[in-house]
């Protein structure tokens, strides 16, 4: 006779006991808590965006984006700051993304686990935690003064690149590490070199994660004020309106983040909507650059191989 004798009444099988009911209530409570926390994150975000857009509405127009500020920032637009930010973000990413991604590939795919590479990894992690003002001082010393780049878009971009580099390396390494080792083993065992393995399997399977890490740095680069304050950004600059190549890389520039800072703290009697409009533009620029990166990612995927 089986030990687990059938319950006298099958209808009572698998039904809730008082204890199960208690567990189910706890489960609902836990789910509710986690859901609430998710909402607590989403709602403020929506509110901030809505509030910004609402406050900025009176000023936002095509003219606002494409004219220089006038009357001590109180009138006119933000063209020179907008263009400056785009220059800084694009140039700094053009420097940090390739270096960061390639270095991460080396560290993750080639580097052996020895003391030197462990120190390099440790340095990368620690660099990622350095406050941006420290990067600013480094940029001032290294690029502006020592390398005689003066205060320029180039010096500021290099400083921003130094700031984002460790984070890009860390996120890229993470993305590469998420590709299963078995994929690599399969490649090695048909005689593929490391570079062939990376090219054919590792990069295509981690490119989304890599780009996501890079994209996150766009907003950070666009938003930072401290690193560019000493190295290339200025309070005011007049440039030809509507000309996308108005800045040279040795020029000083305005930047949205710094403009927002000066308008709110240094300029009296500025229109109430001005800071909000700058903030919306900053957000919009970041989103636009991110969208470009995402389109790039989709394009890579549609090319079958990647």
């Amino acid at each position, binding site marked *: 006779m089986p030990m*687990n004798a059938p319950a006298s009444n099958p*209808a009572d*099988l*698998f039904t809730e*006991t008082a204890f*199960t009911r208690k567990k189910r209530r706890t489960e609902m409570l836990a789910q509710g808590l986690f859901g609430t926390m998710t909402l607590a994150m989403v709602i403020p975000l929506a509110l901030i965006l809505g509030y910004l857009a609402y406050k900025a509405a009176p000023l936002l127009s095509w003219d606002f984006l494409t004219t220089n500020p006038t009357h001590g920032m109180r009138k006119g637009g933000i063209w020179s700051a907008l263009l400056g930010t785009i220059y800084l973000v694009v140039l700094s990413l053009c420097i940090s993304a390739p270096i960061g991604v390639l270095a991460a590939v080396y560290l993750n795919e080639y580097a052996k686990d020895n003391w030197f590479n462990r120190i390099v990894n440790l340095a990368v992690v620690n660099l990622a935690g350095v406050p941006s003002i420290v990067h600013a001082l480094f940029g001032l010393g290294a690029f502006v003064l020592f390398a005689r780049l003066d205060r320029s878009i180039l010096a500021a971009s290099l400083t921003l690149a130094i700031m984002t580099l460790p984070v890009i390396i860390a996120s890229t390494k993470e993305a590469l590490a998420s590709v299963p080792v078995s994929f690599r083993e399969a490649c090695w065992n048909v005689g593929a070199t490391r570079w062939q393995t990376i090219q054919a399997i590792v990069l295509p399977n981690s490119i989304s994660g890599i780009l996501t890490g890079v994209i996150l740095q766009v907003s950070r680069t666009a938003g930072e004020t401290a690193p560019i304050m000493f190295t290339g950004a200025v309070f005011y600059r007049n440039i030809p309106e509507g000309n996308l190549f108005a800045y040279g890389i040795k020029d000083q520039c305005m930047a949205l983040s710094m403009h927002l800072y000066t308008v709110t703290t240094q300029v009296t009697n500025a229109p109430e909507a001005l800071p909000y409009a700058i903030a919306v533009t900053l957000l919009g620029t970041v989103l636009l650059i991110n969208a470009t990166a995402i389109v790039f990612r989709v394009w890579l995927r549609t090319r079958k191989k990647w």
Partner: protein
Amino acid sequence: MNPATLDPTLGASEVQIGITTRDLCLWYAKFQALHNINVDIKKGIITSLIGPSGCGKTTLLRCFNRVNERYGNVTTQGEIKLLGKNIYDPDVSLIELRKSVGMVFQRPNPLPLSVYENVVFGLRIHDEKGLKKSELDDAVEKALTEVGLWSDLKDRLDAKAITLQLEQQQKLCIARLLPLKPEIVLMDEPCSALDVNGTRAIEELMFKLKGRYTIVIVTHNMAQARRCSDECIFMLLGQLIEHSRTAEMFVTPKFPKTAEYIEGRYG
């Protein structure tokens, strides 16, 4: 000697049914994986599910503790009764159901805990009154003895379960189910990651456990199905083709498709 002849319940006048399905259909999104499955799996014996890859064996197995529902886009239709109770009844608690219907997976999946904690894991999460250390100790000894691990591991209960050999891991996964006194144990190719000795050990364990537990095992290994199951179910393309006593199916299959599959496997 065929294990079926050793089984006391088979010859009994009233055979109890462990699992019953009626017109069971299942879709993954638009793909229909199970077509009108009607089956009566007897209580206390070992029933094996065989058939080529993608025929729905594992899907059917996963229906019995409703674990399919955890994955999105699955639609189930029809009736499943376990020990006479429809598991889609509104008063069925998934917690209680899965406590009574244990599952062993293809790859041993011990939890990243000690051997001891693995065995008492189920007890702890279903523990209402606060079990005493001695009760837990007893449960561990009993479960590990039952799966034949006690003598090997009694001095290493603190060892990380994932450091054990695969065979030991799989036995441990079975031992993890036992303290909850399940009614039914579902096994999804439990030996496919094991070598010959590991397979033999798990099979011997299944013989020890049958009678008390209703065991349903999915296997790709014809020899294994023949060796260790009392009844055998052959599936093809989501349909149940044949369900008969293993001895009969392998000697005189009723349907040509069954014969082809079985013989094909033997080459």
